[in-house]
Structure formats: C-alpha cells, structure tokens
C-alpha cells in the first residue's frame, strides 16, 4: 500500500517502464527516480511519451513492462483510487454539476472526511489558492485562471503523496501563466509535496522545476537541473528543444580535448567545445545560443579575449528588454545575437548596417556530430 503519512513527501521511482498502444510504442523503457519533495518536469514535443508516463504514474494506464514505485510500495497493479495521488488535468476536469466547494470536497468525501472537518479543509484549500468565497460558484462561472486554481485546490486538499500536473498552464494566456507558475511553485513548496508535471513549453519547464527530464520518442534523452539542460544539452534534440540557437555546420579541425576548433563550411575556423568522442575530421553542427554571442561596434574594445569576427548588422528585432541583432559574418554566416538593452536602444551604436565584431566563448559553442541525435557535447 501507498504510504499514507500525511504531509510526508515520498519519492517516485520508474524502472524500465514501457507501454505500447497496439503496435505503436508510446514509452520505451523509461527509468526515473524522483526524490521526495522534488518537482520534476517531463518535457518534450507531443507524442514523446511524457503524458503516457504521467498517466502510468497516476494508474490511468497500465504499463506493459517495468515497475512503478510510490514511496517504497510497488503500485503496478494498484488502481488510481487507491494510489493517494493528486492530479491537475489539462482540461481541469472540474465536475460541472458540482459547485467549487463540492469539487474540492470530493476527494475528502471519498476518504470519509465529512462535516465541519471537511468544510474547514475545503475552506483552507480554497484560501491557499486565493479563492476564498468562491465556494458556492459553479465552475462555468469562473475564469480560466480561477478554474486552474480550483483544480489545484482539489488536487492538494487530500494531501496526496504525489501531485501530477498534465500541461497545467497550457490553456492560460501568457501573463496568467507566468503568475500561475510562481503560484504552483510556492504551493508545492508550502505543502512539501513531490510533483511531476508534463509540459511542451521549455520556459515553463525551466522556471518550474528542480529537475527537467527531456523525452523524445518514448525515451528519456536527458535529465538534469534547468541550467544543465539549457547550458549543457547532451544532444542536438535537447539543444533545439530548450531554446533557439544559431546552427553553423562545419568539420572538426582540432579536437581530442575539451576545447577544439571547427572549420565552418563558410570558411572560418571557430573555437568550440567538443565531446570526447568527436575526432578531427568529423562533420558537426556548431550550436550557439544568441545570448552567448556578444556584439560590439567595430571601433570598441573586444569584451573578452578570444576570437572576434567582423560582420555587419543586417536586421534588428527590438523586443523592449532586449534586441536581437542579425549579423552577417564573413566566413561564418548569419549569426543572431541577443543584446540586453542596458543603454537606450535609441542611442544607436548598433544600428542596422553598422560594422561590428561578434564572438563567443569557446565553451558556449557546442559541437554535435551531424545526423547523430545521440551525439554528446562536452560535459
């Protein structure tokens, strides 16, 4: 049986879990250990198996193979109503024939909590999501954000061992999503609950999690802290999925150690960071994130030691807090650089058409072997 100790977070462990729908594999051998109290996101494009994995933890799907443990208990054959789990559905799934208070009370009623105790706990849960006084409303009378919070209150009021969230913020507009991210995080910490959430939004995964698990094609391709996933993607897929990058193709000129050089197809030799298994002569894609690229007016001093390439700004996209400069660099190609607008963007030292120098630290440029999704960057 699942540990029923209230308020005591438990771990979740998946061991070589697999699930197919007919002949179509959805999850192929996922192993993942989640620490008590940790908040982990499953990140990936649709069809990568993240939702199926979550539903297997919930007990809504039976795995074909593998083991699922919640706390120390093996729960493979335990139906969802005995798992003591809380879940927020993408559609929220608030019962439309019940009031907000009845929705929140549902899980308590199923556990035999009734009367004044139940009312108190419902009120406390609604207060926690800042919806005190909304108890008598119907879900249809609430806004999207309010429904989301009711779903969250309903999921945590029973003090579940694990909280599961399936794309919890996908239906909300951007501003609301950002404030809900913070709110979910705070509630998760306050309740001290182990949480797993599924998302296809890299920003959400980075903001909300202690650990990000990137999935592709039914498998885990990388698991790590948000910074590890973002700064040290292990594969080209992970790199592409967690943010925009400049991609430059070339051939390794100098390797065999952590830092090396790549001769770009466009001509220039650039410094990069290499995985141990990439050797001179290998065809690679060099991936550089826009914020790792510095831009300086040609007459200014170079900010850091190392390479600097002359180029011309062809196009600028002003975003308020920052500006994306598209720079045509001779022998490299088009490089997008993100520049925070420390000085007013109107001051105009980096105008379209101006000659500039661009560069990056060698460790910011990751070389991945081309056409090899398993290629590893330096770590």
């Amino acid at each position, binding site marked *: 049986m699942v540990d029923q100790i209230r308020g005591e977070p438990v771990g979740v462990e998946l061991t070589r879990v697999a699930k197919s729908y007919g002949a179509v594999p959805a999850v192929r051998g996922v192993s993942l250990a989640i620490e008590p109290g940790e908040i982990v996101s499953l990140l990936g494009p649709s069809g990568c198996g993240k939702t199926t994995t979550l539903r297997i933890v*919930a*007990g*809504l799907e039976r795995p074909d193979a593998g083991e699922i443990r919640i706390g120390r208990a093996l729960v493979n054959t335990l*139906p*969802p*109503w*005995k*798992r*003591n*789990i*809380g*879940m927020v*559905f*993408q*559609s929220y*799934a608030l*019962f*439309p*024939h019940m009031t907000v208070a009845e929705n929140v009370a*549902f*899980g308590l009623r*199923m*556990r035999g909590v009734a009367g004044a105790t139940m009312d108190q706990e419902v009120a406390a849960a609604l207060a926690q999501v800042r919806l005190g006084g909304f108890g008598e409303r*119907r879900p*249809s009378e609430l806004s999207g954000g309010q429904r989301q919070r009711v779903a969250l209150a*309903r999921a945590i009021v*029973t003090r579940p061992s694990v909280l599961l969230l399936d794309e919890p913020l996908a239906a909300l507009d951007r501003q609301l999503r950002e404030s809900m991210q913070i709110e979910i995080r705070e509630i998760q910490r306050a309740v001290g609950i182990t949480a797993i959430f599924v998302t296809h939004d890299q920003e959400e995964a980075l903001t909300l999690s202690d650990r990000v698990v990137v999935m592709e094609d039914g498998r885990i391709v990388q698991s790590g802290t948000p910074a590890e996933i973002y700064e040290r993607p292990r594969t080209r897929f992970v790199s592409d999925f967690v943010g925009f990058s400049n991609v430059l193709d070339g051939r390794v000129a100098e390797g065999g150690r952590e830092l090396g050089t790549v001769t770009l197809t466009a001509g220039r030799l650039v410094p990069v960071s290499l995985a141990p298994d990439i050797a001179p002569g290998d065809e690679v894609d060099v991936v550089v994130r826009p914020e790792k690229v510095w831009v300086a007016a040609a007459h200014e001093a170079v900010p850091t030691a190392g390479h600097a390439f002359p180029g011309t700004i062809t196009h600028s996209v002003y975003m308020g807090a920052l500006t994306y400069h598209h720079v045509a660099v001779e022998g490299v190609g088009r490089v997008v650089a993100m520049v925070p607008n420390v000085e007013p963007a109107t001051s105009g030292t980096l105008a379209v058409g101006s000659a500039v120098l661009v560069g990056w630290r060698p460790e910011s440029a990751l070389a991945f072997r081309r056409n090899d999704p398993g290629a590893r960057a330096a770590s």
Partner: protein
Amino acid sequence: MSTAVSGSTDAVPMASQRRVRDVSRLMPLALLAPGIVVIGLGLVWPIAAMLAVSLQDKFPDATRVTLEHYGTVLSDPYFLRIIGRTFALATVVTVIAALVGYPVAWYLARSNSRWKHLVFLGVIAPLMVSIIVRMIGWTIILGNEGLINAVLRALGAIDEPLRLMQGFWSVVLGLVHILLPFMILSIAAVLGKIDRSYAEAANILGANPVRTFLSVTLPLSVQGIASGSVIVFCISVGVFVTPIMLGRGQVAVLAITIQEQMVVLVDWPTGAAAAMVLTAGTLVVLGLYGMFIRRHARR
C-alpha cells in the same frame, strides 16, 4: 434576420438593396412555412377541433357549451381506472427502458470493440420493422401455442400453457421493445459527449468505479435519460396497437377507450374529453421536462 444589409447607412438605399432586404426578410418565413403548415394542420387544428367537440353537450347538433364530459371522464371509476392504467403503463415502460437501455448506451458510447457497430445496428434494426410485424413476432413467442410455452411443455415443466399474452406485463414487454432504441440513442448521445477526464479525475480523487458512476457519470448523463424518458413516456401514453395485440383486449388504455367512445359508442364529446385529458397529461410531462432542462442549462 437582415443583418447583412442593416449595417448600410446610405441616405438613399438603392433599389437593389431594398430587394436584397425583402428577400432576406422573406427567406426565413419561406423556410419555416412547410413546418408551420404541417404542425398547424396536423397538430394545432385537430387539438382545437377536439377541444371544441369536448365542450359540446352532443355532437353533432350541439345545443350548449358544457364541462359535463370532463366531469364524467374525471369521476367515473371506469375512466379513472383506465387513466390510471395508461399513465402507470407509460411510467413502468419508461423506467424499465431507462434501466435496460443505460448499459447498452454505455457500451455504444464507450466501447472500442469491433462488435460495437453490430450492436448499434441491432439497436436501430427494430425501427425498420413495422410495429404490427414486431407484435406478431411477440405473439409467436408468448402465445399459448408459442415458443416459450412449447419449450416449457417439451421440458415437462408445465401441463397447461402459461397465459403470457393477455396481461399488463406483456404490453410492457412489447412497448419496451418498441421504444428502447429511442432511450438508448438519447442516452448514448449524451454519454458520448462526456469527457472521460471527469471519470479519471474522480478515480484519482479516490472514487472507485461504482462511486465514480454514481457521483459523476450518472449525474452528467441525466439529461440523456430525461430526453429519452420524455420520448418513451409520450409515445407509451398514447399507444393503441400494442395493447390490443399483446393485451388481447384485457389491457384497456386511454387511446383504445377514446376510439371506442367515438367509433363504437358514437359519443364524440366524451371521447374528445378523454383525449384532452390524455393530451393534458402529456403536456404536464413535457412541462416538467422543460423545467428540468432549464435548471440544468443554468449550470
């Protein structure tokens, strides 16, 4: 109706615009006309005529307007027994159809089985066969020399044939058979639209399948039960052929009595009054249904 042109603020509307407006005004009317004519001629006019007849002391050759026929229908034990039986029959048929139909509707709405289409065909197939043919089918099964009695007799379970064919319950059986498709299709239509995440959410909140059904799925599908029940009830309350054929004259219902009053006893006003009572009963059920739907829609 004419929003397409009403936005025009030209000081002098052109002739062509006026024509467009005229057409756009007449169009809905033209489309509604056939329906209005059919409903008017087929429903409103006969009911109005029946109401008029029921208020005359005799028909034809009325001399005064009177409520005495209503008095007869609503106080005579003979009529009261028939009214009671008619509404009891319709109620029993509705309840049984709902109980029997719900699981089938569930199967149609939720199953992924490849037999599902066959079951669906089986559900609607009876609608393709004339009521008379189906009733004769039941006669063959239930009759004194019918299938059930023949089997029981061959097995030595009975000596005398069971009289399966003349009671209230054989009529109930026949009506449930006829009307079940309406109930099943009404419920299945609603069940099919209920998002499965509701049941999953209930499961995760600790409700086992029985509690999930009772506290989530059933309340969410009650609208399908209600509309199916209204159809079944309103048809059952006015049935004529089935009680005659399966009741062997022992199960008198209002429709039969009305026909007897008018055609056999040639007492049109009393028959018309009985018909108005039947209509009023049906309208009450429809009114309750309307109230229910309005309350439900507010959620």
